């Protein structure tokens, strides 16, 4: 037999098992914390609600689940010390946003390349947030500066980029010439 944890309070006047069971079930099945008033309404009239609550709390003391009193009333919750053991990490991989993917592709094929050149190729301006996302993911890294007015930073892909795409090296990517066949002639839509 497992030893019952003795109630911290000096045993009060006996609380009926029936009242204890009902209070337990009510608090358990409620979506919201149960106000003491609501609890009093379903308990037999002669019941001292505070004593029922104290007895119930004592019964759960030290267990995996505890009876706690929050702003709105009573509720059960798992013991805080167990939270780390109950934590379950669900991995939900995400896709890069379209702009980031396009930017990454341009950097992969044109590296080392400046931000202005990327914008020129995409025909659209590039937000710092997009560059930051790629940097944070470790997919791109600075590759020195271009010897031009303002000495803009040059960007290239990283080893992590190769690893994440499952490439041995950049030569594993299809050659640009093979891809560009599909690009419409200038002036086309």
């Amino acid at each position, binding site marked *: 037999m497992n030893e019952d944890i003795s109630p911290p309070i000096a045993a009060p006047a006996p609380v009926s098992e029936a009242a204890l069971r009902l209070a337990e*079930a009510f608090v*358990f*099945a*409620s*979506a*919201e914390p149960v106000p003491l008033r609501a609890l009093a309404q379903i308990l037999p009239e002669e019941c001292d609600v505070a004593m029922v609550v104290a007895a119930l709390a004592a019964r759960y003391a030290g267990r995996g689940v505890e009876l706690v009193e929050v702003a709105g009333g009573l*509720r*059960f*919750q*798992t013991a805080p010390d167990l*939270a780390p053991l*109950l*934590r*379950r*990490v*669900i*991995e*939900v*991989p*995400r*896709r*890069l946003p*379209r702009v980031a*993917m*396009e*930017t*990454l*592709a*341009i950097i*992969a*094929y044109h590296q080392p390349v400046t931000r202005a050149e990327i914008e*020129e*190729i*995409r*025909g*659209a301006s590039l937000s710092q947030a997009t560059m930051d996302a790629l940097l944070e*993911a470790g997919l791109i890294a600075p590759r020195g500066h271009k010897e031009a007015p303002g000495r803009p930073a040059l960007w290239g892909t990283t080893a992590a980029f190769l690893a*994440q*795409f*499952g*490439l041995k090296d950049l030569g594993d*990517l*299809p050659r640009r010439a093979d*891809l*560009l066949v*599909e*690009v*419409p002639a*200038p*002036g*086309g*839509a």
Partner: protein
Amino acid sequence: MAEAPSEPLIETLVLRLEGFEGPLDLLLELARGQKLDLARISILALVEQYLAVIEGARQVRLELAADWLVMAAWLAWLKSRLLLPAGTDEAEAGEEAAETLAARLTALQAMRAASVWLGARPQLGQDVFARAAPEDFSEIDRSRLILEVPALLRAYLAALRRGVGQRRYRPPPMTLWSVRDALRRLGAMLGSLPDWTDLERFLPESEGSGLPRRAALSATLLAGLEMARDGAVDLRQEVPFGPILLRPAGLGEKDA
């Protein structure tokens, strides 16, 4: 032959016809009135009871849903077969049909019982309650990226297409040697020339060949003509399509 149902029962059934879910439902009710064990009911008695109910219903009101009448007609056929002496083919067909009917009634009765059994169980949300305020300890980790080469290529092609589409067609700037350039160059070089000089010597070295060179040549010729008109230089060409020669004006004898 099993005992016939009492008249009041038939009367109630006639009035309640619409409370049944169809002929099979009524047949099952009649069968249950006969005996508790469906395997031993008398199909013939059942048929007679059904036909009696339908007959009663038709006396009360004329219209009756088609499926009640279809079942009545089929049961009348079944009755005629069941009354034949055993051993004939027709009697056998009747017995087979009676067995099928009994099996259908048994199957429906079983499902009715299953439904009652299910309904008697403590149901979640009705009789027993689960925890209404569950705690979620799962953490969503969205840090990993789905990265595939095909998606990279699609993105690259999409970027190029859009880039090309947005760029307006601008012919590359043609920095051709202009007449003004030629005038400036001729003016600067003129003083250093002692005598007749081929016009082509005045061309800038940077203009190699082709269109830029021809443009420079014609600009220089035009500049030469303009300067000749102003009397700054003399021009001459000895044979058609031969080299055009140029010298500062007043250097030698006058030529036409």
